[in-house]
């Protein structure tokens, strides 16, 4: 990350943190579209806006009607967002931790995701459900889960997982403008990472991956922090002559299979890495799709480097062991090339 932090911002961009970039997206969309509003726990008053600063200063600009602190009522936060979206608003509902979305699955999954289809295409639910997921801070098992696979399983939802400040901004703007329910998952360890972010109306389309690094030998598809770790692994492996091609899907639904398959056709090898529990995680889906599409192109079985199939432990040593790390990517890559 240090490379990014010290980097000069290209023209038209500023170096912002991921949290600041999200904040900018919210601010710009709220200025542009009066139907957009934010609700969630501690989004307005706490520390001037949000436990992670994402909504900082927004209540000052937009007032407490549009930046609404809620009681601790996750199911209602989600359900009200769905109803408000059906009645013409464009809510951005925040869940402080993705783990708390377990309380809000009914409205998100049975209502938001299905309403348009169930109603024969005669309704829209333009709601964004924001939350942060991931481990790394010793928050233990109920505050560290990455639950993106659940949402990816449910037709009717879009699922977004930005890994950089620029994508955080561009994808959040796209999510807010999208006419579908979008589950927008941030990562707690990324909020303070920095990078250049385009000023103004910067959008990143939902469904387009980004190749973060070119390489000839192994395709690495990473989610969230694992994109950054894959880039670090790539740096280390370059010295050994092993080239990783690092792809950040950016949105998991829709998923840019074309870019991944094109890469695998070049490299013949695939690593998929995410923090979420391995079993029935998104990695399995990526592998199943790649295998179905480009079996012939694979020189070796695809490898998963994912969160261990255990609740996330508190101890620093155990937590680190439960998550995929740079060392693991390096080792897996060497093994694939052996």
């Amino acid at each position, binding site marked *: 990350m240090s490379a990014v932090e010290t980097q000069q911002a290209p023209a038209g961009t500023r170096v912002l943190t991921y949290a600041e970039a999200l904040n900018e997206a919210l601010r710009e969309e709220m200025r542009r579209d009066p139907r957009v509003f934010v609700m969630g726990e501690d989004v307005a008053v706490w520390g001037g806006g949000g436990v992670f600063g994402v909504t900082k200063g927004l209540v000052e600009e937009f007032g407490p009607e549009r930046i609404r602190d*809620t009681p601790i009522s996750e199911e209602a936060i989600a359900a009200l967002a769905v*109803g*408000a979206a*059906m009645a013409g608003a464009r809510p951005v509902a925040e869940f402080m931790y993705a783990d708390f979305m377990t309380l809000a699955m009914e409205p998100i999954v049975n209502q938001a995701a299905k309403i348009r289809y169930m109603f024969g295409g005669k*309704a829209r639910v*333009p709601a964004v459900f924001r939350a942060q997921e991931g481990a790394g801070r010793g928050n233990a098992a109920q505050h560290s889960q990455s639950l993106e696979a659940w949402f990816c399983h449910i037709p*009717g939802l*879009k699922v977004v997982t930005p890994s950089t400040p620029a994508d955080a901004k561009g994808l959040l703007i796209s999510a807010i403008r999208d006419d579908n329910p979008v589950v927008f998952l941030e990562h707690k360890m990324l909020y303070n990472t920095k990078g250049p972010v385009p000023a103004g109306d910067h959008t990143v389309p939902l469904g387009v991956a980004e190749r973060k690094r070119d390489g000839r030998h192994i395709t690495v598809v990473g989610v969230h922090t694992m994109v950054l770790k894959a880039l670090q692994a790539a740096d280390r492996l370059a010295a050994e002559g092993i080239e990783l091609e690092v792809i950040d899907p950016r949105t998991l639904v829709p998923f840019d299979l074309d870019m991944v398959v094109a890469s695998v056709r070049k490299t013949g090898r695939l690593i998929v890495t995410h923090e979420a529990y391995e079993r029935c995680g998104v990695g399995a889906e990526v592998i199943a799709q790649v295998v179905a599409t480009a079996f012939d192109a694979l020189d070796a079985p695809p490898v998963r480097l994912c969160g261990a199939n255990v609740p996330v432990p508190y101890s620093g040593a155990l937590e680190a062991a439960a998550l995929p790390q740079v060392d693991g990517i390096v080792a897996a890559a060497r093994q694939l090339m052996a």
Partner: protein
Amino acid sequence: MSAVTASPPELSPARLVDMLRMMMRIREFDQRALELYREGVMRGTTHPYIGMEAVAVGACATLRPGDRITSTHRGHGHCLAKGGDPRLMMAELLGRAAGYCKGKGGSMHIADVDAGILGANGIVGGGIGLATGAALASKLAGRDEVAVCFFGDGALNQGIFHEAANLAAIWRLPVIYVCENNQYAMSARADRFTSVPDPAVRADAYGFPGGSCDGMDALAVYSAVGAAVARARAGEGPSLVVCVTYRYLGHHVGDPLNYRDKAEVEAWRAKDPIERLRAALIERRALTAADADAARADVEREIADAVAFAKASPEPDLATLTEDVYA
């Protein structure tokens, strides 16, 4: 516990007759739906609203076109009362392309968002948060619309009621919680599964008005809900109106009905809401018996027509399977 008491506008004779006609329409619709189910041309299940017509009709008579409702699994009555088209509804029951949902929703998912009908719902309590959210949207946009949330005595014990009611209270949202206490949630008797004899007291826990009314009397419902609507529209916040009513038939077509006795059913049938309004209107001379019979005949024709329309509509094209998942 205190109900709202302000009275809503007096209903003209013509409106009263419309209400009677609507109640007849709902009953006829649900009777035909049952027949279609028994004929085997309908799938899934159907939850008849028969006996409860006064609630939907009395409540919806208080609303303007821009107002919204959320409905339940037992939703045909709400949908018709808020202006749903019986032909598109019937076609949906038969899973046809011309149905409200193009055959994708069926009985439990009929909706007409443009008409303010945010859908029946297969999830007990599923509409409670939606109505509250719709009310929030109205408030945010500065529109004086209200949202009426229909839900059952069973739904009252879902956590979402608690969360949404608290939010509606602190945010003074224009939502009216209309609890249809039809005495049962499937086999669960309201008086045994809800911890308080009169569910209306639950409003006290949120600091907004709550009251019960005779849900077999469309005019009583109209007054009670109307007062709550006026309050909501004036920006004074939510209310809970419990409508005491009864479902004459089984929960759905497959109900074994082993949990209540015939005498109870008969006692409620004696309070029939359609007969009651009919008699009241005849007494008020808003209607003659012959008019009422003619209205019933009209409604029968209308619903027969809806069935014919539905049956004539084609099955959905298989290509539509993957359409409309996303906008």
